[in-house]
């Protein structure tokens, strides 16, 4: 009798389990369907398109299959390598600066003090601000005649002649990096602060008793315990920087020349200005692979946790 009961319970449990599995799949289905329909299937189409020569310039232009020819063209495309260099430089410089600045700020405000709410709210302003708006704001701030940066530098006698920021390539790219740093450092600081607050205070007290300096405590306690947070923050910020489009499009439109043209901007122009959808798809596939590679390095090699920070 006991055996029969056991079997019955087992059967009940099993059907309950499969009912749970069915319900789970049912509830997840709309999300999965949306992601498949809007992201995964179009991604497959982009990969397919990259093997064709597709020009939308003429209504009924032939669209021949060209195999890997577009990829060959890419290898010889100076503009592509220029865009890669710009993207690497801008994302490397801005993410590095954000990490250092964000860490300093997080360490500074990791305590209770009067006016914490004001600091917290002001931190969120650059983060919430539309990138397009921020790009316009900085274009105005950098303006060669009426910009406030030139005004302040002139009044402080740092410069005699106004700097035309957005015309000289070697200046423009750093002006863009500065705008990017302004927009994203506060968010980096917030993430790191949240991580800092999880570190038990006793650890620092113990370290102080053991004679560790503040500097030593930072290297031996803070950094190792903050490692997961830092990796997540770096992962998402690096990928955001690689995908950068809004800021260069609005602030400089890739100029002067191609000196601030990122890979996404170049690809976008190939699609919608040159109307070359085959070659554009090739670049889009490469950008996807770059993003994949970056996230693979962070997640597998460095061991970043996989559920993570939001923009």
């Amino acid at each position, binding site marked *: 009798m006991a055996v029969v009961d056991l079997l019955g319970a087992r059967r009940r449990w099993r059907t309950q389990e499969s009912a*749970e*599995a*069915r*319900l*789970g*799949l049912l509830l*997840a289905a*709309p*999300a*999965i369907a*949306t992601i498949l329909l809007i992201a*995964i299937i*179009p*991604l497959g189409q*982009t990969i397919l*398109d990259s093997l064709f020569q597709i020009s939308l310039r003429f209504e009924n232009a032939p669209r021949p299959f060209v195999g890997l020819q577009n990829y060959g063209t890419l290898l010889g495309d100076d503009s592509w390598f220029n865009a890669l260099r710009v993207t690497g430089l801008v994302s490397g410089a801005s993410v590095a600066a954000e990490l250092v600045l964000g860490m300093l700020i997080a360490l*500074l*405000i990791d305590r209770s*003090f009067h006016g914490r709410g004001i600091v*917290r709210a*002001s931190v969120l*302003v*650059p983060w*919430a*601000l*539309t*990138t*397009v*708006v921020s*790009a*316009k*704001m900085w274009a*105005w701030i950098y303006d060669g*005649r*009426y910009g*406030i940066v030139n*005004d302040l530098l002139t*009044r402080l006698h740092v410069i005699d002649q106004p700097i035309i920021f957005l015309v000289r390539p070697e200046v423009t790219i750093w002006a863009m990096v500065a705008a990017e740093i302004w927009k994203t450092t*506060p968010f980096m600081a917030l993430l790191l*602060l*949240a*991580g800092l607050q999880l570190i038990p205070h006793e650890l620092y007290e113990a370290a102080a008793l053991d004679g560790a300096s503040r500097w030593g405590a930072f290297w031996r306690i803070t950094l190792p315990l903050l490692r*997961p*947070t830092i990796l997540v*923050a770096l992962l998402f910020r690096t*990928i955001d920087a*690689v995908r950068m489009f*809004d800021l260069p499009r609005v602030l400089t439109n890739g100029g002067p020349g191609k000196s601030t043209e990122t890979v*996404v901007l170049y690809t976008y122009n190939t699609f919608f200005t040159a109307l070359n959808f085959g070659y554009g*798809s090739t670049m*889009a*596939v490469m950008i996807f692979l770059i*993003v994949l590679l970056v*996230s693979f390095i962070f997640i597998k090699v460095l061991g970043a946790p*996989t*559920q*993570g*920070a*939001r*923009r």
Partner: protein
Amino acid sequence: MTAPAGIASVPIATTSFRARGWRKRFEGFTFYTLVAGFVVFCLAPFVWTFLTALKGPTTIFEVPIRYLPTPPDLVNYVDIFRQDRFRWALLNSTIVASSATALSLVIGSVCAYAIARLNFPFKNLLLALVLAIAMFPGIAIIGPLFRQFNAWGLTNNYLALILPNVTFTLPICIWTLTAFFSELPTEVEESARVDGCTRMQAFYKITVPLSAPGVFTAAILLFIQAWNEFLFARTFMSQPTRLTATVAIAQFEGADIAAQYPWGQITAASIVITLPLVVLVLLFQRRIISGLTAGAVKG
């Protein structure tokens, strides 16, 4: 090693009381100076935009710069609201961002509930998919979407923006809500089911109301993301009456093409477009920060 270090910390106690007071005050002063510097760093560009927007056409283009708008002039705000294009842009952004937020919440909340509460096959694959979407470069799908939306006659249709926005806001939605659902005690739900509720009734009647703060936090984050979207909005909408606010401001040319670039109107439009976000941030900063950082630090 511990003993001498312990002794080393003793001299602090012997430092004279007065010297410690001064030192403390100095540290406090330095601290607040640095914090103030940081706040200025965050707000200055925004404040400067705000001040510029209040200047009339002659004051803006004065050299040397006049910092304060004296007297403040609302002409730029009047000008932009006179333009059909700008009024449309605000309406379009509101429609697209709110619809995308609502739809994403519906799709995302049931999915998050399943992830938090149920065991089902391919769950890890789903989590990987969600993570992939969070890092997905929009440029990788823009070509096929553009051609497909054209073929379906969806260009200049709100759906063409709502669908991609829903897709790309799903990760934040699912992560935020999964975190909230996991923190709710299962007992309440179970007792509701004992009282005769089905699982879905328990979800709608118990879990959703209880997680209202989480849903609200998610809604704010999603709305901000959808409101700020630029790449798709710029691509799928071309009619002047279908542009969103981000595209309108990027293409701003002013009411009449004067000799000067219309900085007054651009800054005024920037303030108007940013205002809803800044208000949300000021009102709900605590929620936003907890929502933003929850996933990151808990891994």
